[in-house]
């Protein structure tokens, strides 16, 4: 009895506590800086804050995104997609990104939402501005139609579902927000590179360009702040960088792959004609000119070259490798300093470098430690008949012609409008025919089984 009453008191206390915690408003989500970019560009904390300030001024916050007029982004759409998820009195959904996307793609659009760790492939990180499934030339951005197709169809074979039940205006809002996060992410990287290349602590100079010295005759150091709002020169640079980031988005519509009408395979091809095209495609697939088999494997199972990475993994792999290299370098530097010490030589300079490298390692290690396991880019198993970028013949044509941006898959068609490709358009259509036929082609070439009554069939 006593025990029960004590328990009930405890229970009440616990309930109250939960209720209290539950009532507390979660802090508004904020954009976080891209740690890989900041650390690899050795951006100091002071500059990081300034980069964050500039980004906030240009793009606003996850609750209140700002559509820069130059960007051509639609403010209304961004507002509909951003902020907390709720429905207004008319039943219009608000905060669409947080309702449908954030758990995988993350507040920053870095593909690192809470569920990302459990998914294979990992959700896309928009911040590099690279998109795989689009019907534009390899380096070009996707068009709105491309992004809308991915939202409508999802990405078959991955965790990305179809959002075709959303309304047109909701899809518009989401694709606008994806573009917004991508532009913001690319901007962040380029600003960090600018700060690394052009700013940073430097020796102070007087009007004549001579170094300013302190009482002891040492050069005075100064840190030029990154503040484009007050520094006109920096303001111009930021505008320039923004133009560089925006131009490819604005030019995407001129970069759509349009296969020539007269090369299109006819709709009414006979079985023989299709068979002939498949046979040609087969030769190309296993030949070194198109070279598909090297990665997709001798039977199209995707078991060829499997040790490569896409650009998203590569970014982390490069960071991780450099961190390991730095760690090894520190060990050999320590040995070298010990050796010099034994020989009675000066080691001041070596020790200064060692200290600098150790400080750098201390910054890099926690970033590398937080990576999810880095995965290889595995070539698609073409026998499954599942095509991530869509199963229309045109989709496959674009994958083969332009390659898949950000991945090891190269293009065999024209690289830019009007350019000469390795394969002709007709040949690419042959490869498409063969790829579409691959799931139905026996992996080996077995003898067809004889009918049970073959002995009764007259020769």
């Amino acid at each position, binding site marked *: 009895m006593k025990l029960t009453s004590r328990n009930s008191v405890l229970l009440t206390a616990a309930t109250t506590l939960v209720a209290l915690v539950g009532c507390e408003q979660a802090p508004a989500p904020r954009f976080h800086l891209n740690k890989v970019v900041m650390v690899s560009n*050795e951006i100091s904390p002071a500059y990081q804050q300034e980069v964050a300030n500039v980004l906030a001024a240009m793009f606003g916050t996850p609750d209140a995104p700002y559509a820069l007029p130059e960007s051509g982004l639609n403010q209304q759409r961004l507002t509909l997609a951003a902020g907390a998820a709720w429905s207004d009195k008319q039943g219009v959904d608000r905060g669409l990104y947080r309702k449908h996307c954030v758990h995988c793609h993350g507040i920053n659009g870095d593909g690192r939402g809470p569920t990302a760790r459990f998914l294979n492939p990992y959700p896309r990180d928009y911040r590099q501005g690279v998109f795989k499934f689009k019907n534009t030339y*390899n*380096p*070009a951005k996707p068009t709105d139609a491309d992004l809308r197709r991915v939202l409508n169809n999802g990405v078959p074979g991955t965790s990305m579902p179809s959002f075709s039940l959303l309304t047109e205006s909701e899809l518009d809002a989401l694709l606008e927000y994806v573009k917004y996060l991508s532009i913001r992410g690319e901007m962040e990287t380029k600003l960090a*590179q*600018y700060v*690394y*290349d*052009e700013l*940073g602590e430097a020796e102070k100079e007087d009007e004549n360009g001579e170094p300013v010295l302190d009482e002891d005759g040492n050069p005075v150091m100064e840190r030029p702040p990154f503040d484009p709002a007050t520094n006109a020169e920096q303001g111009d*640079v930021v505008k*320039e960088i923004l133009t*560089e980031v925006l131009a490819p988005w604005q030019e995407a519509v001129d970069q759509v792959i349009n296969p020539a009408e007269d090369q299109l395979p006819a709709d009414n091809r006979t079985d023989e004609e299709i068979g002939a095209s498949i046979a040609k495609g087969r030769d190309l697939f296993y*030949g*070194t*000119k*198109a*070279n598909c088999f*090297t*990665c997709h494997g001798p039977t199209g199972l995707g078991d060829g*070259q499997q*040790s*490569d990475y896409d*650009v998203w993994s*590569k970014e982390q792999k490069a960071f991780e490798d*450099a961190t390991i*290299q*730095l760690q*090894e*370098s520190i060990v*050999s*530097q320590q040995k*070298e300093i010990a050796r010099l010490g034994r020989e009675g030589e000066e080691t001041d300079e*070596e020790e200064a*470098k060692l200290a600098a490298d150790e400080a750098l390692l201390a910054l890099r290690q926690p970033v590398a430690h937080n990576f999810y396991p880095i995965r290889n880019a595995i070539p698609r198993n073409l026998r499954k008949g599942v095509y991530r970028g869509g199963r229309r013949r045109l989709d496959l044509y674009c994958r083969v012609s332009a*390659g898949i*941006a*950000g991945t*090891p*898959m*190269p*293009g*065999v068609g024209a*690289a*830019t409008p009007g350019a*000469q490709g*390795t*394969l002709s358009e007709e040949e690419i259509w042959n490869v498409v025919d063969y790829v579409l036929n691959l799931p139905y082609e026996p992996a080996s070439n077995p003898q067809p089984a004889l009918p049970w009554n073959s002995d009764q069939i007259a020769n």
Partner: protein
Amino acid sequence: MNCNMMKRLTSIAALAVVMTVGTTAVAADWGTIKGKFVFKGDVKPEKIVPNKDTEYCSKHELVDESVVVGDGGELSNVFVYLNPGRGKKLDVHPDIKPAAEPRILDNKGCRFEPHAMTVWTADKFEIRNSDDGIGHNTNASMLFANPKFNEQVTNGAPIMKQFTKSESYPSKVACNVHPWMNAYVLIRDNPYMAVSAADGSFEIANIPAGKHDFAFWHEAKGNLKDLKVGKDKADRKGQLEIDVPAGKTVDLGVIEITPALLGK
């Protein structure tokens, strides 16, 4: 007619004068820098065992080319290039002309030839595949200012490229079919750049006289931060201001590269 032509010529001349005045720093004089890189450490180039096209590729003795040194430690593939700063243009000596033939990056013997090269945006750039019956692709996904590309290259059908913008650093180019294959290409909108040769030496000639920042870069580390060049030291970006006097050659002498500098 003649008179008209004269007029037109005069106006062109006038325009030329205005343009010259507009660009301010027209250097009438030019200078040269040169030097030689020597690596102060041991390098044992790792042998590469091909796992693709093994029969063909094994015929070529492939080694890891990330640090290539001569018998006396001469370090090749160090990039040295003039960095005028963001958005600033340089005058180009009238003798420096775009190459008549395209600059070639060849897929040859299951490696890229050359391993490190420079391309001026005025030059044409061509990617070849000289390995008969072997498929290569050339993946330049590490371009930032210029459009990235990733294309299949087949025998006898080279890919032609024309770049328009300066990249800040040499860009890694890879073949995804043969994962050991990579090369570094520095694309700049001025011709003032060099890659150290097999004997470790480099020379950049006909530079507009004056003080310039030069960047030093090697693929094993990237920017050669704190590189010691004579009495001077490169900054945190691996850059050093060098005064190039008119009509003279600045010999930077032997530039020693320690293993620590290359992150070894």
